[in-house]
């Protein structure tokens, strides 16, 4: 399972990336693997204020709908217009073309509370060993 070192992570399986003072948000390889068949994505409007840990977007697989939570508080400055048109990008390239939105962080300190790649790796290991196949 790919977990890029440069990114930070949430318990709810979003990734966050620092990019020139802004933060790019997407879902992790583990999350897209669990969702498997992404068929619909609903993004927040640009300009929307979001709060850390609150729902900011929705992703739907064939089976069910899931909330995507804001990893940090802030204002949405950009959304990925490509993924509502081609939701399969979320499955195909979750750390690249499948990004969700960009935030201007409101409280920079929140970044430090996010999980490192190593901490996230431990989290999903615990998860998968518990669930079996």
């Amino acid at each position, binding site marked *: 399972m790919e977990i890029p070192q440069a990114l930070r992570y949430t318990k709810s399986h979003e990734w966050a990336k620092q990019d020139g003072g802004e933060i790019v948000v997407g879902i992790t390889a583990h999350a897209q693997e669990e969702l*498997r*068949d992404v*068929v*619909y994505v*609903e993004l927040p409007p640009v300009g929307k204020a979001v709060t850390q840990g609150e729902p900011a977007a*929705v992703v*739907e*697989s*064939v*089976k*069910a*709908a899931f909330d995507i939570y804001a990893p940090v508080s802030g204002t949405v400055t950009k959304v990925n217009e490509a993924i509502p048109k*081609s*939701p*399969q990008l979320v499955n195909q390239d979750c750390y690249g073309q499948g990004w969700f939105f960009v935030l201007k962080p409101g409280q920079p300190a929140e970044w430090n509370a996010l999980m490192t790649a190593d901490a996230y790796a431990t989290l999903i290991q615990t998860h998968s060993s518990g669930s079996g*196949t």
Partner: protein
Amino acid sequence: MNRTALHPEHLKLGAKMTDFNGWDMPLYYTSILEEHAAVRRTAGLFDISHMGQVWVSGASAMQSVNELVVSDVAQVGEGRACYTMLTNERGGILDDIIVYRVGAQEWLVIVNCANRAKDLEWLTRHRRPGTEVRDLSQGRAILAIQGPKSAEALERALELKLSGMGRFDVIPAAPLGRQAWVARTGYTGSDGFELFLPDAQAVRAWQRLIEQRQAPLERTTSLTGQASGVMPVGLGARDTLRLEAGLRLYGTDMDEATTPLEADLGWTVALHKASFLGKEALVRQHAAGVSRRLAGFEMSQGPVPRHGCALWAGTPAAGGTSRQVGQVTSGTFSPVLGKPIGMGYVEAALAKPGTALEVDIRLKRHPATVVKMPFWRKTNGDPSGVTLHQVA
């Protein structure tokens, strides 16, 4: 949790398992969309051994069945099958079933897994003297192979002779043991077969059919690039396939509080029959007209409608008021049509194709149009030409 005889095969194939009414069943092996595509284009193999097999036999077996189902099974000849419904005195649907007349006085009745005990009790309690009702499920399995290449796959892997079999025909499957049958039935809307057979033979049949993936029927390329002949298919795609085909799911789209007329399955009801349990109630409802009816709807885009979403109608833009007129019972993203589809009960007058509705999804209303079901129908054209959105 209950396990079918094929359970180890599912684990070997790396299936994602799920609890379905107390059965540990495969949800998908690779992806719901890919498995859906395999059934529409080539062939898919399903383990549906969780469904109940009930044996009804004896000199009065036909009369017993005929008094308990809405269809006229006197019209069902030996070697034929019929989709029908068990109803209670109020005309409420106890279960939707397929009855297979495998002998002059022998019927194999396939029931939904959640209704197995209830149906057995009902059939036993209401049978005529001279009819035996027996649970035939123990030690037995059901495999479904569905898709345009099903016949070819079965003939090749299992040496079955299927030529001349029509839709809803059932014949003994001698190479698969005694008390084994193959029927041209299914729950996908595609051509296909179902096998009713002992566990040991089912495991061998499964393995042989799966081995065909190494010697594919046709060099088609699936999403992952591997050749796909007979692909194992889980319950996830079984649901999207049956929905595209406009087929109801018991417990979701209908229950004991629903009649066949409300479920828009009036074509199964033989009101002219001398008598059957529920007839009086259905005759009355037929005369009075139903107040609500199951309707299929399509959305051009947007989120996926799900069980429980409210359905609205009305034209606030034209100065009218909109109101809630029903509820979604099933919904999904149709892989073949590339858009959200669903079914739900609405006021009867609004069940007409072309009616504009709105579906409330996460507190936002999205336009939908009532359409005639099935949403997708197989044609005699080249199945490899089926366009599957998002399954490039």
